[in-house]
């Protein structure tokens, strides 16, 4: 309690905080477990988010391996189809809400105050709360695995009427979604308030690092769409337990309405996972190309247009529900438009590399792989935006390949890149570059063995979300499963590299990367930074 009050002062009254510092000659975090429970320090909370995300990444990954093990060969070998469906559902929910989103919030917590010259986040207690909601939300979600009838099994999209057939899990899963939504909204408010109010003097909006920009736009998306999702799942809840018929055709409701609501959330949601990745990549490439980012302002405008467009394209997930022709065409054209700002981003990254003096440390390797492989996902996205062609692609492994390309070598690689990039700053130790490179090469090769054949499977006619398949799909499924296991186990190297760097290693300099101090304020701080940074605002050039 006193700790929290103390923090408040440190944020809102620099002089008071300084006075305090003088009394106790060294001000650091409280000791023991309670430090983590009561902390309001942005770095501690960032760490909590990142550790949680890593754990959830491993849990969700284990579920993916159950799926790929069953799909290794035709015939049912290991799990019942009902359990298989629970695995696909939980895998997706955990990866989206448990791994990717919290990891980016972790980055935001650690880096945004350091990047904009602020002493902490603007609303530190809310920050604490938005993190500590998560363990409860995940416990609720995971507990459904042990309930009668098992965990939700209708896919992460939770479409009615199927999802309403579920057993005891439904209210638990929905309440978990509510909590996750609250946490995200609080995190988003905190980021917006911090960026708009706590920038160091001279840090104008158009000087903000791109990572900060992408996060601000992401935060607006979160605030706009999480309530829609919460509303939609609440309507599921009342349909199931309180006799309403929002989505029940027999009662005058409309099952397709749910899909519109879900995707009004769901499409921006995919950009919520990718915009911060764009920010990370736009931060890393200039450092290792030793050149400023090409087209900074067009990057900002492109991000904003992607954010805007993401609200008006949702029904490209529903080309087969029987919308009117005009609807099909409108959503086709609008979706195709997203390719323009996305293309601008890719061109800018390439132009940043052009005529640079590149070196290829692990963060840069992951960033380059991101640009190449994310773009692959962009191409398939463009193909799927063409509604008549999507009548074939929809609900097949082609879709699975598309979104895994944008999410795994896309968002997840951006997380790896960012972690390797900032880890020396966070821990004060260089990570093991050899192991980092090994992790990179194993991941990059295996992720393609894992997901590339899925394009072929989808085109050849394999639907998604099936536990067993016709024999002509055997070869590519076997290959994909082999890739999955290699990819999965390669991630243990990453875990080990992180642990190793936390425990010790070569001392990192303040700048860490050659010339990095020209690329961001964080590199002018000591490595590791003291518990409180920027208690006096930095000078912005």
């Amino acid at each position, binding site marked *: 309690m006193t700790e929290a009050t103390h923090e408040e002062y440190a944020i809102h009254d620099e002089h008071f905080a300084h006075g305090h510092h003088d009394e106790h000659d060294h001000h650091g975090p409280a000791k023991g477990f309670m430090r983590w429970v009561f902390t309001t320090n942005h770095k501690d909370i960032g760490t909590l988010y990142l550790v949680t995300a890593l754990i959830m990444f491993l849990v969700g990954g284990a579920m993916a391996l159950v799926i790929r093990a069953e799909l290794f060969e*035709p*015939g*049912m*070998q290991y799990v*019942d*189809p009902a359990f298989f*469906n629970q695995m696909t559902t939980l895998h997706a929910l955990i990866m989206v809400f448990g791994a990717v989103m919290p990891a980016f919030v972790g980055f935001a917590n650690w880096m945004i105050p350091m990047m904009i010259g602020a002493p902490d986040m603007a609303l530190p207690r809310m920050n604490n709360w938005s993190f500590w909601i998560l363990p409860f939300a995940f416990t609720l979600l995971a507990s459904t695995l042990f309930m009668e*009838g098992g965990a939700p*099994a209708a896919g992460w999209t939770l*479409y009615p*009427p199927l999802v309403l*057939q579920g057993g005891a899990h439904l209210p638990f899963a929905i309440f978990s979604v509510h909590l996750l939504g609250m946490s995200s909204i609080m995190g988003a408010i905190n980021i917006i308030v911090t960026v708009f109010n706590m920038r160091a003097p001279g840090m104008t909006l158009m000087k903000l690092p791109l990572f900060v920009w992408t996060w601000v736009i992401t935060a607006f998306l979160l605030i706009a769409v999480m309530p829609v999702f919460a509303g939609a799942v609440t309507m599921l809840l009342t349909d199931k337990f309180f006799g309403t018929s929002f989505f029940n*055709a027999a009662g005058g*409701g409309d099952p*397709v309405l749910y899909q519109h609501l879900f995707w009004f959330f769901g499409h921006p949601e995919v950009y919520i996972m990718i915009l911060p990745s764009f920010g990370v990549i736009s931060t890393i490439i200039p450092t290792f*190309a*030793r*050149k*400023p980012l090409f*087209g900074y*302002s067009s990057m900002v405008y492109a991000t904003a247009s992607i954010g805007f467009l993401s609200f008006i394209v949702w029904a490209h997930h529903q080309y*087969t*529900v*029987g919308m009117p*022709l005009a609807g099909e*065409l409108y959503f*086709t054209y609008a979706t*195709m438009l997203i*390719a323009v700002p996305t293309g601008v981003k*890719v*061109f800018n990254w*390439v132009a940043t590399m*052009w*005529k640079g*003096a*590149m*070196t290829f440390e692990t963060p840069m390797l992951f960033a380059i792989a991101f*640009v*190449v492989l994310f*773009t692959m996902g962009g191409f398939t996205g463009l*193909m799927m935006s063409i*509604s*008549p*062609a999507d*009548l*074939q692609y929809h*609900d*097949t492994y082609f879709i699975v390949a598309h979104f895994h390309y944008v999410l795994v070598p896309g968002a997840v690689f951006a997380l790896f890149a960012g972690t390797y990039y900032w880890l020396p700053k966070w821990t004060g130790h260089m990570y093991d570059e050899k192991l980092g490179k090994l992790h990179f090469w194993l991941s990059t090769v295996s992720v393609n063995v894992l997901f590339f054949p899925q394009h*072929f499977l989808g085109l*050849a*006619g394999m*639907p*998604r979300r099936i536990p*067993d*398949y*016709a*024999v002509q799909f055997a*070869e*590519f499924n076997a290959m994909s499963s*082999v890739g999955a296991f290699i990819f999965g186990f390669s991630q243990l190297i990453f875990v080990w590299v992180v642990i190793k760097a936390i425990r010790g290693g070569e001392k990192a300099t303040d700048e860490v990367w050659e010339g990095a101090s020209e690329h961001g304020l964080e590199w002018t701080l000591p490595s590791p930074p003291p518990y409180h940074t920027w208690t006096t605002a930095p000078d912005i050039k």
Partner: protein
Amino acid sequence: MKKLKLLITGLGIATFGEASADYALNLSPGVTQLSRDIYDLHMYILWICVAIGVGVYGMMVYSIMHHRKSKGAVPAHFHENTKLEVVWTIIPFIILLAMAIPATKVMIEAYDTSASDMTVKVTGYQWKWRYTYLDNGIDFFSTLDAKSNEARQLGVRSNPEAVPNYLLEVDKPLVIPAGKKVRFLFTAADVIHSWWVPQFGWKKDAIPGYVTDAWTRVEQPGIYRGQCAELCGRDHGFMPIVVDVKSEADYNKWVEEQKAQAQKAVADAAKTYSMAELMAKGEEVYNANCAGCHMTNGEGMQGMFPAIKGSPVATGDLNTHLDVVVKGKGQMMPSFGDSLSPVEIAAVVTYQRNGFGNNMGDLVQPSDVSARN
């Protein structure tokens, strides 16, 4: 052994890009004008993407090879170029326009269900399809065939390669005439399903409370296979679609046969059957319709599907038992009143009450079933 072989092929494809076996890499052009138009559109966009990819990746590779510090590169300082940025915003617009025009044409074609020669209503059920011919009243269900169904059970350790058309075979295919424009109406009885035959070029969702439509005109007789494409519960992967496209003459013959069979079914329902007849027929019906959940040995699945063996229903009041089968129960147990004939229901209920050691001694006749319908 088989696993090892798969593993080796899997890795083989990964390393050598071998391209001999019977797997496909690309969409099938299909068997209708519409499916070919969709295929052409797909190839057209694919090649555009490949061209853009070659450009972008080419620049990257060149840059990575030449602009590296280890080669003594000195970083340039440029960080914007308005002209370039405007150009690479406008060019994509033009490319998109070149994609949007053919896309619009094909979509209009796909949506044109007018002037059809006949209409089939397709209803999705968990987990089978029902085909109702609106022009002549033929009406039947189509489910996964027994061989695939047996081979796909968990723990049977069968060899799927030995099952012809594993998971892509049904007991009774949809039959349509070649050369005719067939309009389909889609709806569903329980949850959302999606009807997809890749060689026709499209899929369409079957949604409870909605009627969606689509059409096809298949030029050549043949057998075309597909699957449900929208997750619809436990056995989503096990409700295939088979379309038998016949020449017009063969199709007309088939229609006559169906009508004759329907008359025979009415006559059969009036007959009385012996225990042996009912048990034999019942086992067949049970394995095709019930075993998916209640299991071939009648032991069900703990926590999900109740056992038939010793169940209070199968060993209790006969009328309650009949009601459960005819009308369904709760969210998961489907009603079989529409999909099974009175003879089949009589047989399967007899089988459940006397098989699995239930030994109730009841003999159920089709007339008992008709009385409860």
